[in-house]
């Protein structure tokens, strides 16, 4: 087992210094994710400007992997168009689940999450932030932006 393959330097750096932890003033939508098996929790708040993500708050309470995954997500999606972000999030999910996926050349730190695939029991941890984001965007798009979405990695993501 290559521990360092999962806990890459990039991951540990995000874990120690998580991005996106500064509360934001106004939010356009938010969602809350929860993984009952681990007890991990994430709260995401997002502000938009012209269809782009202008500000993001991503507060993850959990293990190194879920924390780093939330931090990588916060860093990566800031400034990007909601449509694009949705597409990417869906593909990250597929990547983590070992399904076919298309990811942009410039993946930022996302590719550091790939090592998690070798630790099947930890994939859920990495998934949480991205699923919560997908659910949040979905709800925003269908006009339920102010509802809090509780997603669970147990539900269909097992």
């Amino acid at each position: 087992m290559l521990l360092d393959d999962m806990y890459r330097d990039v991951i540990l750096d995000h874990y120690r210094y998580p991005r996106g932890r500064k509360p934001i003033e106004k939010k356009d939508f938010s969602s809350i994710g929860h993984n009952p098996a681990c007890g991990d929790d994430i709260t995401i708040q997002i502000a938009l400007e012209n269809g782009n993500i202008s500000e993001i708050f991503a507060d993850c309470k959990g293990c190194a992997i879920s924390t780093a995954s939330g931090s990588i997500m916060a860093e990566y999606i800031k400034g990007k168009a909601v449509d694009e972000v949705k597409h990417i999030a869906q593909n990250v999910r597929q990547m983590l689940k070992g399904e076919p996926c298309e990811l942009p050349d410039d993946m930022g730190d996302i590719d550091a999450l790939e090592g998690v695939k070798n630790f099947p029991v930890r994939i859920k941890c990495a998934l949480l932030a991205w699923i919560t984001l997908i659910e949040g965007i979905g709800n925003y798009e269908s006009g339920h932006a102010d509802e809090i979405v509780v997603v669970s990695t147990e539900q269909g993501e097992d």
Partner: protein
Amino acid sequence: MHTRPEDIVITSDNSSRLCARTIKADFPVLSQDINGHKLVYLDNAASSQKPQSVIDELSRFYSEDNANIHRGLHTLAERSTNAYESTRKRVAKFIGCQNPDEVILNSGTTAGINLIAYSWGEEHINEGDEIVITEMEHHANLIPWVILAKRKKAVLKRIPITSDGRLNLDDIENIITDRTKILALSHMSNVLGTINPVTEIAEIAHKHGAIVVADGAQAVPHMPVDVSTLGVDFYTFSAHKMLGPTGVGVLWGKKELLDKMQPFMTGGEMIREVHFDKVTWAEIPHRFEPGTPNIAGVVGFAAAIDYLENIGMDKIRQHEIEITRYALEKLSKIDKLDIQGPTEPDIRGAAISFTDHNVHPHDISTFLDSKGIAIRAGHHCAQPLLRILGKVATARASFYIYNDEADVDALVQAIIEMKKYFGV
């Protein structure tokens, strides 16, 4: 038989100590390397490993005696039936029960508690009645009562815990009342290690006319248990946590109560006479053992009990007190590490839950595994307890007969390295 008496030697300095190293050699799974390190198995509260004698007995049974039990008149059926029924007697003796008919063999602790909740509970619990549990219950001894209470509009009350993980009995006379019908509590907590004063609390419950159900899943593997003096009405445990095969469990119950209970699951082998419109039941214990049981597993379980008794449950308890003392002492010296449960080894077992101020239990577990150390991380099927402890998860190291001080040292060393690795 693999376990020769001389396998269980005593060290020269202290005749009450086990030689864990010699015992280890009887457990084939423990001789392997995991991630380049000799396996240190500290997940015994989840499930124990099996000695060669148990594995051999399973093979022997399937290779020589296997057949369905009861009602069979041929040689193999008779051998199987005898082996199965003699395990029942073996179990009865092991837990101090005089009448083997009081021993119901099933698939595990969970099955036993559900049986009581359905069969006894369905008949005796009415609206407004009270069911008392504790805050430290495993889901197996919690959810069946939550559901029963809901179904019957009964009230679920709980005995709280103290900050060091013992039951807080200060208010017990208000918790257990004349409306209490059932008290269900664990004999030993799988998270805190706490050994509960079952006899004392059972006495209070009995005074109020309640029945007492004890969850012995963590107690029976680790200490002498005598149901004839414990003072409870029902007692349940699982073979897989005490060197036995998976898929085997025991429900012990008082004959007076079992005799009057309706069966829970129905099917073959538990009836006297069957008509399309009327069924009469067999006597206990068969009434509660429908269908083909885990015959080979039950037979293998006898070999597990033999192994434990060859060592002696008193000695096992003594060994675990020593190792718990050593582990608590060493772990408590580690900076920023919180340990749950009582600090005195004589009122607790060897399941030790801990959390690091910075590293999440899941990361602790993954890191330790990379050093060959198997512990468990999570809510340990006790979510309400963890919520009370203010944790979403803990790491848990749990020790057994084959663990020794060297295993504790390996754990402690690895935790120290872990802290460096995550550097938080």
